[in-house]
């Protein structure tokens, strides 16, 4: 399958990428290409210009910054999975990165690409939401920091504006316990439902594929804050959440799965 025709340019650095993206209002950044290229092959996306940023090595890094770990947006899933700094300070992220797609996908796909794509069915955005990560966007007028809970806006929609590029993801250290539960039927499938839970001060719980974007479970978190038991909190996990039905699961089944997986995640964290 061939994508529709498009123009292609390579960015030399972040400033050059920003200049090139602003030259065409239907332009898209191309990183690892493992969300965008499949959409283009199905002709669900037909950008007129691709600005390839995949070779900007300046955006591929994991750095210990004291209170937080800074991850360059072009860090591949494979490198997140194997980062010693992340394994020591934010162990849920290497674990979740290792559950994205398959090894070939992880050799190309990037954490920034996954986050900027903003798919509610992706693993990493929900994990970053549970971690209270901060997204750093760079535009022609400078940088701005966006808390994860304000970043994901809706179906494939984020707070990034068309003339901004996601350059860094900052993840707080201090995880006391964590769990990630991904339910799918076959190897390499997307999660039918996933639950990311992180204990760092309070307990944060986020869902994969329970809505058009990754979602925090305010029902579960609120109950835990008031001293509810794991069973009680898990039962309230889907309060206010109305998941979609599709070929894999009805909305009712997703609600059931989310409660079961939340309970298992919380139990695993209590160890």
């Amino acid at each position, binding site marked *: *399958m*061939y*994508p*529709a*025709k*498009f*123009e*292609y340019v*390579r960015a030399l650095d972040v400033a050059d990428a920003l200049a090139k993206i602003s030259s065409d209002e239907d332009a898209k950044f*191309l990183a690892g*290409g*493992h969300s965008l*290229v*499949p959409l*283009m*092959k199905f002709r669900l996306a037909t950008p007129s210009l*691709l600005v*390839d940023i*995949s070779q900007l090595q300046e955006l591929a890094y994991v750095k210990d910054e004291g209170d937080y770990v800074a991850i360059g947006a072009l860090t591949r899933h*494979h490198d997140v999975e194997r980062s010693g700094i992340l394994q020591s300070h934010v162990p849920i992220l290497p674990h979740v990165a290792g559950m994205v*797609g*398959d*090894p*070939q*996908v992880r*050799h*190309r796909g990037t954490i920034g690409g996954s986050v900027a794509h903003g798919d509610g069915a992706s693993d990493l955005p929900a994990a970053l939401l549970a971690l209270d990560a901060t997204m750093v966007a760079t535009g022609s007028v400078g940088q701005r920091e966006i808390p994860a809970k304000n970043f994901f806006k809706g179906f494939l929609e984020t707070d990034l504006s068309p003339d901004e590029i996601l350059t860094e993801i900052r993840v707080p250290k201090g995880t006391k316990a964590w769990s990630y539960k991904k339910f799918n039927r076959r*190897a*390499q499938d997307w999660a039918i439902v996933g639950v990311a839970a992180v204990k760092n001060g309070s307990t944060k719980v986020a869902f994969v594929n329970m809505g058009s974007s990754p979602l925090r479970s305010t029902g579960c978190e609120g109950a835990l804050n008031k001293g509810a038991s794991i069973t009680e909190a898990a039962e309230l996990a889907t309060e206010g959440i109305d998941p979609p039905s599709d070929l894999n699961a009805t909305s009712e089944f997703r609600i059931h799965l989310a409660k079961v997986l939340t309970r298992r995640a919380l139990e695993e964290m209590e160890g």
Partner: protein
Amino acid sequence: MKVSMKINGVDYEKDVEPRRLLVHFIREDAGLTGTNVGCDTSSCGACTVLMNGESIKSCTVLAVQAEAAEIQTIEGLAEPDGTLHPLQRAFQECHGLQCGYCTPGMVMASLSLIKENTSLDEQAVRRGLEGNLCRCTGYHNIIKAVLQAADEMGVKA
């Protein structure tokens, strides 16, 4: 747009449309048809090749993204005199293929897996090959073949 890359140590330079997929560059521009197109949606792994030493699905990479890259395909594994690579020999000896369609991708994904690990057991091989589908063998003999080759290449359980 001009793109140049090395495939199995040989330089290729062609003028291609930006939308040309790497797998078509390999098969049609370089004439190396050992790499197959299966699902064309990055699920089945039949198009797996190594790009700068790591397995990738060449149906989901644009040829222009492989500018200056080193690509290795199934044709680049055997010695010039025809002596098979340990992985190819193991697939043959363990009956790790039937129709053979998935085999080039399986072998290249296995090579990447072996190169990335210092030890491999059955579970690690099964998980490491989750991006490659086979509809004939039931996988058991593929796993045996990869473990045999890994052992021979110095990566043990």
